[in-house]
């Protein structure tokens, strides 16, 4: 078609009467096109800058808000366990500890289970079962965290108090280190319960990302391995997992990001106690739970500032976790792409 070779401006001029197609008009149309083009570019640029402005604003607000606390307590804020609103002596160690420990428990449970589900869905599942399980996993991800919290407090925690926790205490009681880790009394709620709830919450993230990267493994690799006489276990262990390793790690990091910042569900079941206990059954607290619990009634600048400083710490932790996750995912995309 001849129009394909026509300059853009001539195409634009085609719709106006032929008599008008004089050189000045051509110039005007060109100018209009240029204007549209540049204003569109500016618009997209502004929209993108907005993200940076918001992020920068949050960082500045967090730093500014936490300055009084950081100035007062200095580095000691990070390593002190005290959290005493009466004497205004605050330290972030107990919430940091709780945040890290609950996330570790969640990951220790959710990562193996998530991988097992993903392997089953991609390699072993009969086709008719694949969709129901896949949808169920995605629904699990869609449940609001407050629902997990209520369910955790009313159903899960009393259940654990009656069953799992006494069993753990009896089982590990005679073993030296583990007896401290699982020392009673069984409250039902506590650090372990919060970790278990978090595991359920991050499971869908890890499962669905792992499933996607497993599906991205080129069939020819798997077929070649099967052709060599590999068992399903060997194909998964030596072909699928090595190929998808980086992508799975990215998914795990995204799940970890969620576990670190989760607030409502944890607040309901962790016990909200500013103490570091050797026992996983004892109540503890996390950064986000502390902020959610205490911000409304924080009297005095130092108290409020200490809570903002906790927010800053969480921001830094999650920023690094998510940065690593993005980097991992970027690498896998490059390899697949």
């Amino acid at each position: 078609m001849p129009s394909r070779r026509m300059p853009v401006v001539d195409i634009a001029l085609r719709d106006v009467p032929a008599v008008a197609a004089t050189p000045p008009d051509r110039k005007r149309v060109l100018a209009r096109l240029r204007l549209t083009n540049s204003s569109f570019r500016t618009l997209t640029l502004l929209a993108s800058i907005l993200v940076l402005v918001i992020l920068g604003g949050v960082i500045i607000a967090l730093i500014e808000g936490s300055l009084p606390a950081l100035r007062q307590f200095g580095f000691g804020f990070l390593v002190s366990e005290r959290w005493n609103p009466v004497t205004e002596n605050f330290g972030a160690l107990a919430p940091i500890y709780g945040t890290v420990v609950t996330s570790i428990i969640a990951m220790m449970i959710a990562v193996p289970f998530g991988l097992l589900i993903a392997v089953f869905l991609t390699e072993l599942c009969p086709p008719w079962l694949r969709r129901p399980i896949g949808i169920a996993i995605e629904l699990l991800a869609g449940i609001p965290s407050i629902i997990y919290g209520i369910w955790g407090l009313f159903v899960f925690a009393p259940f654990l108090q009656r069953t799992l926790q006494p069993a753990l205490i009896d089982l590990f009681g005679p073993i030296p280190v583990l007896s401290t880790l699982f020392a009673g009394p069984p409250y039902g709620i506590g650090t372990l319960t919060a970790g278990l709830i978090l595991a359920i919450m991050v499971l869908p993230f890890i499962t669905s990302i792992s499933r996607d990267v497993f599906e991205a493994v080129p069939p020819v690799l798997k077929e070649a391995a099967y052709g060599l006489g590999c068992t399903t276990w060997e194909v998964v262990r030596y072909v699928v997992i090595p190929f998808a390793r980086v992508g799975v790690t990215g998914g795990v990091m995204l799940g970890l990001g969620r576990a670190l910042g989760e607030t409502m569900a944890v607040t309901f079941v962790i016990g909200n106690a500013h103490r570091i206990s050797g026992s996983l059954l004892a109540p503890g607290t996390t950064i986000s739970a502390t902020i959610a619990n205490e911000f409304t009634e924080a009297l005095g600048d130092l108290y409020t500032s200490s809570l903002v400083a906790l927010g800053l710490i969480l921001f830094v932790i999650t920023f690094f976790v998510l940065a690593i996750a993005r980097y991992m995912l970027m690498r896998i995309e490059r390899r697949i792409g």
Partner: protein
Amino acid sequence: MNVYKALIAAGALVAASVAPAAAADISGAGATFPYPIYAKWADTYKKETGIGLNYQSIGSGGGIKQILAKTVTFGASDAPLKPEELTKNGLVQFPMVMGGIVPVVNVDGIKPGELVIDGPTLGKIFLGEVKTWNDAAIQKLNPGLKLPSQAIAVVHRSDGSGTTFNFTDYLSKVSPEWKSKVGSATSVEWPAGIGAKGNEGVANNVAQTKGSIGYVEYAYAKQNKLPHTKMVNKDGKTVAPEMASFQAAAASADWNSVPGYGVIITDQPGAGTWPITTATWILMYKTPADVATSKAALEFFAWAYEKGDKMAEDLDYIPMPANVVKSVEATWTAEIKDPSGKPLFTAR
């Protein structure tokens, strides 16, 4: 908070704010504890006079911040401000209504009102020193009860609250060890136990956790049918939490002993006195910027003092004694004035 009551209250506030306003609506913010009764009063007052009240129950700390920022006509707090803070900010403070705090327990075989606890033992439990239900300290107070060897799970508030302020104030008065180790404030460094958000959170955690003890506003214990305890009061008498014992505590208090009526009525003397009784306060400016709305607010409070007693008792609050009301109204006339120095309120 009792869900049913909260829904009614929320509904009342929504209705009050949606209906066409005949006069400027009064705005207030603060304590969650008196929210149900303020909402009930506001609803009834709106029907009688057409003047609405918009009360946000954001917590005592928030209420103090809001009145200092002058975004509301009045602030409400469960913990009184100190006289010097009132003077510094030009605020007037007065008590509006009272309530009781009761220990609640979840122990197999213990029915409501069966268990007796005294202040020092309660302090030891919350310090984590008395660890099991059959501890000698508890058994001695309850010779007739068969107590289990179960571990005690202490449940306290995780958020700052006036309830905690009054509860810890009581423990500081009866236990020197509590006073030196923990002290009293709207939130404290708890030596033991589980934290839960709000009265409803404590009530739910106690209901869910076997062997637990917590403290809640009387209304929550009553409505959730939690087994409350009896207490040994300052006179050494065992009392049950009920309207009469709360009123006895209010009557025995010397309200004029502290400027701004900031009397904390825990551990009051008297044979029939419930030891952990509390008041909740209103904060207003001595020379408010919005004269008309502040005048309307004072008229609302006067109406609530005069006609709100029955409504308060229905919701398990304790109305202020008549002599205190008289004194508060005299304070309004003497201290709250428009820029020309004319009092905003004159008692009828």
